[in-house]
């Protein structure tokens, strides 16, 4: 069976006054039915652009190359209309900010039933019943009353549940969740992540979970792609990644997370410096200037994506623990 999504050498650049800004550089990723992929990186690493490119949500200034295959069909040359026909039933998306993603002047009920009527051709009554069932499924208390409410009347967690209900309403093959819990409290974050995992299994949906927090992806994904400056720098099954980390960048990212075990008053390990200028194409490894293990070779030559076996890929001349 073909994978739900296959990106091959996907690159995205933006035309800016300072020159071409390379946001995503030749990314190759595969996602099977029901699988969950975590895309992790700092702001500016290209993780959001990657998911938007797949959804056909890039602005006009963007230049995209490479292929996007959806269920074995190449959709990279689809028109805007053709891509739009995939939304809802094929791919759906949840955004970071649930306030701005919902329409502020329409009732929750109308926003939920819209795609059911338009996409699935349900009549109003059936759509309403399905919508109430969905609200129950995402654990919204008193779904009948919720149908009549406006987004401003809801908390961030409630709004994100509504977004999730809308996204899964037409049983999509795959779901993009772009930082779905970054704007939420830890307690609500835990609930929302749990809910997403349940729904994924229930609907056998593939999911791409985009986040800057390795803690969020650890328990909720099958594999992880770590992005840095537009490149996928490490790509491995989740357990393999955490138990046998190869990239110094991934290691640094993991170390910088504050933990409950951290003794009070200790200095947290930091990644000094910042991302290279995305409009310049400098030789060498883009992480070289911030890497604790840097050598002359790293500054001179960019490492290729290396196959380390066990489906573990990394982009480093001197991987942690040596090459396999």
């Amino acid at each position, binding site marked *: 069976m073909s994978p739900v999504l296959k990106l091959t050498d996907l690159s995205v650049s933006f035309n800016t006054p300072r020159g071409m800004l390379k946001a995503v550089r030749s990314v190759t990723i595969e996602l099977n039915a029901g699988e969950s992929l975590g895309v992790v990186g*700092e*702001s500016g690493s290209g993780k959001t652009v990657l998911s938007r490119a797949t959804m056909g949500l890039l602005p006009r200034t963007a230049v995209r190359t490479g292929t996007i295959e959806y269920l074995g069909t190449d959709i990279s040359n689809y028109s805007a209309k053709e891509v739009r026909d995939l939304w809802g039933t094929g791919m759906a998306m949840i955004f970071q900010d649930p306030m701005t993603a919902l329409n502020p002047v329409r009732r929750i009920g109308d926003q939920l039933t819209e795609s059911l009527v338009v996409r699935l051709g349900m009549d109003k009554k059936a759509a309403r019943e399905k919508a109430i069932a969905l609200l129950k499924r995402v*654990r919204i*208390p008193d779904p009948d009353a919720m149908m009549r409410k406006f987004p401003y009347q809801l*908390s*961030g*967690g*409630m709004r994100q549940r509504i977004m999730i209900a809308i996204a899964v309403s037409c049983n999509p093959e795959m779901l993009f969740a772009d930082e779905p819990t970054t704007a939420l*409290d*830890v*307690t*609500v*974050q*835990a*609930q929302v*992540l*749990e809910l997403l995992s349940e729904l994924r299994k229930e609907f056998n949906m593939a999911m791409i979970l985009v986040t*800057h*927090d*390795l*803690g*969020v992806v*650890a*328990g909720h994904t099958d594999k992880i792609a770590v992005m840095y400056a537009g490149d996928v720098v490490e790509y491995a099954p*989740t*357990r393999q990644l*955490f138990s046998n980390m190869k990239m110094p960048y991934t290691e*640094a*990212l*993991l170390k*910088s*997370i*504050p*933990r*409950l075990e*951290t003794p*009070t*008053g*200790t*200095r*947290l*390990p*930091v*990644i000094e410096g*910042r991302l290279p200028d995305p409009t310049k194409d400098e030789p060498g490894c883009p992480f070289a200037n911030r890497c604790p293990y840097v050598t002359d070779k790293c500054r001179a030559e960019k490492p290729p994506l290396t196959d380390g076996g066990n489906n573990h890929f990394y982009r480093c001349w001197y991987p942690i623990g040596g090459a396999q």
Partner: protein
Amino acid sequence: MAGTGKAHLRPEGDRVLVVEDLTVEFNVGKGNVVKAVSGVSFDLVRGETLAIVGESGCGKSTLGKAVLQLPKPTSGSVNFLSKELTTMGKQELRDMRPAMQMIFQDPISSLDPRLPVSEVLAEPLRVWNRGNQVEIDAKIDELLTAANLDPAVVRDRRSYEFSGGQCQRISIARALALDPTMIICDEPVSALDVSVQAQILNLLQDMKDRYGLTLIFISHDLAVVKAVSTRVMVMYLGKVCEIGTPDEIYQNTKHHYTKALVGSVPIPDPDRPLTGNLIQGEPPSPANPPSGCRFRTRCPMATEQCAQEEPQLREVSLGHFVACHHPIGE
């Protein structure tokens, strides 16, 4: 979840701030009143970092602002450097402001986009007549260097040219300009990437040691709090649940709400998924809080007593206070 107790105050210490029975109410129309903070007391000893932790809507930011009289609290007392702030006149209060500063959550919108960084920092110095232009320039360079920014590069740029982390460094430099005694940091790192978070937390620690600051650190992230604070106060719906040192709070958790918060912190380890201590739902509306203990509607241990009686803060071990009828392990 009561917090209407003062057993945890420390009258013998060198206290910078003493807050007693602080209540903040907002009139939301139709005769409805939201009690954002109800009867909270705490004190702050010089050099301490007090973390105030809780979910959105628990009143932690309102509490921080009420300490600065922004706006004035509905009732209660705020005693800062042995002066009562709540009864002060406008001018008197203004004279106190340099000693108490604030750092906000969103680093980009808290800086004026039209002003170059040098002006952002010069403004408070000029308003308070802290020297002539040469002295002010020297002070600006000192502040920027202290915040790990290169004055030569940064001075003439405007806030939109910087990343979130750099803007937060500038905000910290600005808060330090008038040599404050106390800084209230309202979620200073929640808008930042994990990698940048660590840099800013380290910077705050350095500044605290270097300038002898006393900090209030408001956050919803217990892991962040653990690294920086000397005392932690957990709040729920405008009341105090538990207060103590970070080690006591995390390793000897007494309150069921604190336990749920600790259990919700994502752990970067695939073999340790969340522990299932998840509390369900969200806090009820502060306009109509539950009777008795405010946490009882989400608490796994709630009994009839919790609905009837509001628990008072009491000491469970040295310096560790909890407001619960059925604390964990008792």
